[in-house]
């Protein structure tokens, strides 16, 4: 994992001091709430329905047990004993007192963490593949590149007041586990014919009220040009992105309105100029960062055998454990989606347990996934059974990864000041309807995603089944959509028709899954069947 040097630490420490000063000036009335708002937002502090919400950055979703323990400590000391892991691989706390935030940030800084740029119209936390460094299918570990971008984007003076927020994702395999093409800039690391690593740039993807899949603007940006090229992409956006309408201000609208070719032409022209300015760190910097992401000290003689005689353990392994690149090791997914729970929430006790287990069984490393789960990336297969038992004791062994109850859901109207409808109760009711794991496994991979408003924080456009909560004359109403995907088969879901009430949407989901069970062929997933048969049979079942 990356470790701060004196420079990284001094920047984070200075940020704490700066924010302390800003909070003091706000509390003293020296600056107005309007002036304070973008300052607190660039530090991840939102004013929600009931209280301040603080979002803490977990760069590319990677953290160690000491950092995870700090997250538990913060939940206990500053919040109501729990935290919520988010689709940007961050964590947020819902009940924060403004005057305590400087102390909270100081505690975070003591374990090399911060809340810098986790909100606001700036470059947000860089997300990545949660299996980075452990996946067999990656061309390289994408995290050093993500770290290089993290440093470049931190307090970037030109891009602190963009038209709108800006999200990067970096992956390094064909399988896309990070919804890369639904980002403002998605980067896929690839090798060229000469065997060199470079970045394929996709620009202008995103969800929100106008979902778009990012087109490729350059198929290979060498490591030496990464920063310059990103700078060119951002400068064109900062200069020409729309600022007249908040809902048309994301880069996807600019790329769409200019057309991919014209946007690309402008970027290439800007890049040609920027490249002359020597803004790119030397290769030695990427190499320095890469040294922090070396393989852990695997036991090369570890056995690949796994005793699956305990049926409950076997179910968990089958669903939640993924192949590791190193024989004798596995990737263990910890579901934060217990049946009837709040997707992505974990108590301080659970966060502590996960930290301890990471230390004992996963070379001190954890990952947060964009699907709001936790990963222990490097577990020896011979430790899996003990690990599972300990997870089970902490109610962290729900065997539902990528099944219908492994939902993404935004906080919705229970917390969020933007929401039109509640997401959490709908998620809970659907999970309860499909509680039986056998029933869920029968349905196979089924990505269900719920947003409580059109801003789409719950990724409903990318759901095999998507649900959007809207307000219809003061009543919560839920629209159903089908056929989306945030993976390498990226697609945007299509709405089925008129919406449903809270109980109606649960029935509608079940009807849609029944159509799938009737129509599927071979080992088709839900989304494959939908793509083959189209909307008609689903509509018929839903609205007749």
């Amino acid at each position, binding site marked *: 994992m990356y470790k701060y040097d004196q420079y990284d630490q001094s920047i984070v420490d200075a940020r704490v*001091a700066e924010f302390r000063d800003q909070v003091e000036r706000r509390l003293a009335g020296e600056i107005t709430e309007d002036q304070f708002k973008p300052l607190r937002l660039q530090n991840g502090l939102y004013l929600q329905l009931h209280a301040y919400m603080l979002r803490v950055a977990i760069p590319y979703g990677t953290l160690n047990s000491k950092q995870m323990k700090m997250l538990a400590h913060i939940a206990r000391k500053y919040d109501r004993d729990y935290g919520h892991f988010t689709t940007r691989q961050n964590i947020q706390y819902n009940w924060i007192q403004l005057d305590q935030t400087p102390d909270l940030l100081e505690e975070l800084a003591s374990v090399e963490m911060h809340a810098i740029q986790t909100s606001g119209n700036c470059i947000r936390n860089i997300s990545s593949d949660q299996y980075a460094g452990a996946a067999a299918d990656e061309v390289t570990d994408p995290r050093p590149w993500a770290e290089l971008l993290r440093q470049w984007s931190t307090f970037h003076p030109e891009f602190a007041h963009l038209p709108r927020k800006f999200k990067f994702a970096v992956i390094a395999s064909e399988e896309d586990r990070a919804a890369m093409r639904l980002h403002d800039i998605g980067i896929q690391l690839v090798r060229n014919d000469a065997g060199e690593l470079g970045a394929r740039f996709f620009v202008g993807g995103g969800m929100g009220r106008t979902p778009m899949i990012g087109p490729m603007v350059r198929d290979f940006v060498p490591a030496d040009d990464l920063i310059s090229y990103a700078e060119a992409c951002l400068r064109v956006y900062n200069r020409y992105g729309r600022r007249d309408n908040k809902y048309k201000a994301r880069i996807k609208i600019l790329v769409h309105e200019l057309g991919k070719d014209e946007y690309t032409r402008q970027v290439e022209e800007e890049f040609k100029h920027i490249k002359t300015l020597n803004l790119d760190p030397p290769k030695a910097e990427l190499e320095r960062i890469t040294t922090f992401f070396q393989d852990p000290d695997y036991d090369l003689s570890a056995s690949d055998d796994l005793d699956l005689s305990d049926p409950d353990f076997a179910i968990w392994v089958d669903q939640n454990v993924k192949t590791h690149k190193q024989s004798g090791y596995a990737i263990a997914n910890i579901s934060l989606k217990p049946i009837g729970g709040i997707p992505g929430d974990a108590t301080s006790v659970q966060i502590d347990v996960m930290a301890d287990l990471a230390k004992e069984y996963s070379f001190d490393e954890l990952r947060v996934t964009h699907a709001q789960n936790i990963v222990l990336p490097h577990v020896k297969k011979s430790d899996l059974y003990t690990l599972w038992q300990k997870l089970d004791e902490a109610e962290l062994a729900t065997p539902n990864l990528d099944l219908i109850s492994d939902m993404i859901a935004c906080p919705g109207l229970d917390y969020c000041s933007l929401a039109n409808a509640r997401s959490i109760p709908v998620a809970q009711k659907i999970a309860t309807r499909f509680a039986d794991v056998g029933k869920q496994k029968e349905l196979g991979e089924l990505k269900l995603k719920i947003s409580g408003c059109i801003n789409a924080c719950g990724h409903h456009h990318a759901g095999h089944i998507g649900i959007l909560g809207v307000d219809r004359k003061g009543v919560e109403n839920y629209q159903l959509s089908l056929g989306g995907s945030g993976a390498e088969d990226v697609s945007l879901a299509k709405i089925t028709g008129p919406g449903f009430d809270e109980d109606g949407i649960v029935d509608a989901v079940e009807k849609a899954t029944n159509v799938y069970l009737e129509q599927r062929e071979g080992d088709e997933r839900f989304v494959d069947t939908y793509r083959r048969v189209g909307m008609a049979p689903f509509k018929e079942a839903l609205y007749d």
Partner: protein
Amino acid sequence: MTDIFSLRDDSPVTETPVSIEEFLGGNATAVRIEVGEDARQLLPYLDRIALVEISFPAFTDGRGYSAARVLREADYTGELRAQGDVLLDQIRYMHRCGFDSFAPEKPLEADQVDAVLKRFDAVYQSTVDGQNPVWALRHGG
């Protein structure tokens, strides 16, 4: 007229800046860029410009940062003034993008500006302010 807060050694230009259109059609030496106008239009004339004033109608509108850098990257050395909704908490970003004078709607306190500019010893990016980014410091730059 608003007080000018300058970080330059010379005194602020007193000439009233003219619009880009007027500037291109005449021989003024002070010019004002409104948001949305292309700073690159000025690049052929940088030798004769003593002041470029860039407008910030709202501090949340960040176009002026790019305009400033574009000018400095073309080796403009005259006064570069941020005018409008210019607030203490944006001064450091502005300075790093090449602004060296400020005409804020509400006056800035010198000691506070000084504190803000000194707050961060280290920066991650190479910009036009000449400060060595940490990647350069790490690799003997």
